């Protein structure tokens, strides 16, 4: 069963319709406490899909998390749903109960701007996804992964290309709720990179879908764009890369579920998602002509999100180098055994 065949995918899409930014012109959508949207998602089990019920989650499968994150990207829902689902799963893996409210995490190993002194945190974290909305965060300190409450922190707002909050959060004598030694900075990096890869797949699918729709209706030279081979072949090439990316993120989620081969499969997912995302965004824009460049049209919601997500949790080059080293250092010195193990 693949991403969209999971019934959770369809139900998440329905639930997210209320906060989708698709078709809303230039309006930003509030998912803050005042809007009342988050508690609905929480109540219906979309915020912590793969967290066991006894730890506060919906008690679903690991693949349900993939489905929800993918659906959120398709809806271009600008809210910390993916971060909450992943941080919640990490907390649960460490055996910690997961509180209500949005969660977030960063993968900056060591959090160089933060100091833990006498059990209290001082300093700042930059680029924290949804720092202004999240109630709690996982931060990979040198001493272990800190689970902290963000209430009382000062937030300097920032954002990425897609208009998602990437904030600088200042801590003053803040005591972490827990120091989780079962988690490492690399766990956060791997899960963060996989999360962004899934999102890229969702956005790339929407970008291509818009391009296919446009090509079918826009007429030039007396016939629809879709009838030109130059258009068909660009879209077919991008769709092929997307198929490889989709199956790769599915494989990586399967590795997460099994607890085996995660490093290898996440790197592969990340690389395939970046390759596909780049191509799908570029092709979708080319097919749309000037219209795709207009703010009032939805394509940029997906294409700029792809570009933003390619830059977060390690670039293509970072993951390619890491996978290459892993392959070269494989004990058998044999790429075939590395790939088939």
């Amino acid at each position: 069963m693949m991403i969209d065949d999971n019934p959770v995918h369809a139900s998440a899409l329905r639930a997210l319709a209320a906060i989708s930014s698709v078709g809303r012109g230039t309006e930003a959508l509030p998912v803050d406490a005042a809007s009342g949207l988050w508690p609905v998602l929480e109540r219906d089990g979309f915020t912590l899909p793969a967290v066991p019920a006894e730890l506060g989650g919906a008690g679903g499968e690991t693949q349900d998390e993939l489905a929800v994150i993918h659906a959120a990207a398709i809806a271009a829902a600008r809210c910390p749903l993916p971060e909450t689902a992943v941080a919640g799963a990490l907390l649960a893996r460490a055996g910690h109960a997961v509180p209500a409210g949005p969660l977030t995490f960063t993968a900056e190993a060591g959090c160089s701007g933060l100091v833990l002194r006498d059990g209290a945190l001082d300093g700042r974290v930059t680029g924290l996804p949804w720092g202004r909305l999240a109630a709690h965060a996982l931060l990979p300190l040198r001493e272990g992964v800190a689970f902290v409450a963000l209430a009382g922190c000062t937030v300097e707002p920032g954002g990425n290309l897609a208009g998602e909050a990437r904030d600088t959060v200042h801590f003053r004598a803040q005591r972490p709720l827990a120091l989780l030694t079962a988690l490492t900075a690399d766990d956060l990096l791997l899960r963060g990179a996989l999360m962004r890869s899934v999102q890229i797949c969702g956005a790339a699918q929407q970008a291509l879908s818009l391009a296919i729709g446009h090509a079918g209706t826009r007429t030039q030279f007396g016939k629809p764009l879709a009838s030109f081979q130059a258009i068909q072949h660009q879209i077919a090439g991008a769709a092929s890369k997307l198929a490889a990316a989709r199956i790769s993120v599915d494989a990586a989620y399967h590795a997460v579920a099994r607890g085996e081969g995660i490093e290898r499969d996440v790197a592969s997912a990340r690389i395939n998602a970046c390759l596909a995302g780049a191509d799908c965004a570029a092709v979708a824009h080319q097919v749309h002509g000037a219209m795709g460049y207009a703010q009032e049209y939805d394509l940029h919601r997906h294409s700029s999100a792809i570009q933003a997500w390619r830059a977060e949790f390690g670039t293509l080059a970072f993951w390619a180098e890491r996978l290459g080293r892993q392959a070269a250092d494989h004990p058998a010195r044999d790429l075939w055994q590395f790939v088939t193990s």
Partner: protein
Amino acid sequence: MQQISFPYRNAELDRFADFRQRVRRFLEADPAAQEPRADCWSQFDAAFSRRLAAEGFLGLTWPRQHGGGERSSLERFILLEELLAAGVPVGAHWISERQVGPLLLRYGTPAQKEEFLPRIARAELFFCIGLSEPDSGSDLASLRTAAVSTPEGWRVRGRKIWTSNAHRNHYMILLCRTEPGSRRHAGLSQLIVDMRSPGLSLRPIPNMSGEHEFNEVTFDDVLVPHDRLVGTEGNGWEQVTSELAFERSGPERFMSSFILLRQMGRLGRAFPAEKLGLLTARLMGLRALSVSVAAMLNDGKLPNLEAALVKELGSRLEQDIGEVLLDGLACAPDPAAGDAIDRLMAQTLLHAPSYSIRGGAREILRGIIARGLELR
């Protein structure tokens, strides 16, 4: 957007781990693995094919009564990918086992099955496929080679070209026009032609690596007995396309250059990790897609669209491996070099242009994918 679906995972292969080990043990002991070749499924070595047959490795999925092993398509997938990863010369039987066997199993008469299948599985009979013609390449449906029904059999006139190993094969599956005046996909049939038939002549066409694989085959009133018609008269196009998923989705559609990458690592050659990682990720993605298609075939589905996608993406990887390594690895490509990497690099570069042409040109595949996406 129409989703192109790949519903199965690599985990489908897990239950056959013992079989994979068995194939690996066979390969470790076989002399052919000592001299691996790029594009090894174009390398003709009848003796090696017979050693595989002796292990029961040909016709692995076919019924026992026809000389097969009644194993699953997934075991066959494992066998194929292990053979390709080892770079062993599997070209003699490849087409016969991949296409002719399944064709005869599906459409052959009981007598044809009995006559040909066990001997294909024993690597005693090798077939070629007569499709392209001098004026019909990607536009295969424009083919003109014609067979006329006479009391003594079919009389064939015409010409086929780019026919791999026609000079070494015993039979050809010939696609020809059997209905005079028919056009395009209608009126085509498949005939089994004995390559020793009077009136059949061959002209070698050496390829750019200097090897003689291709031939031009001329039919000058070649007599083919009536009982050598495969399936239904006039149904040739449908019969040919029913095998496309088998032909286009296998690991040979993305692994033709893999041995170069593998040997580079085994021999400890310096190569930028980032480039290796990129190629490895693409290989992993393709392999997952290809396994998924094998599992669909195992379910009795005919995933032609998905197979076209595997081949479209796969030929790009096969070609890029040569390109990326040429730009990143210190070597002096030469087919006659003493150094194994220099030799493999030369083989890869000299064979790579064919990867995106054989078995459906890239442009044709993209057209199929575009149709699947409802663009045309």
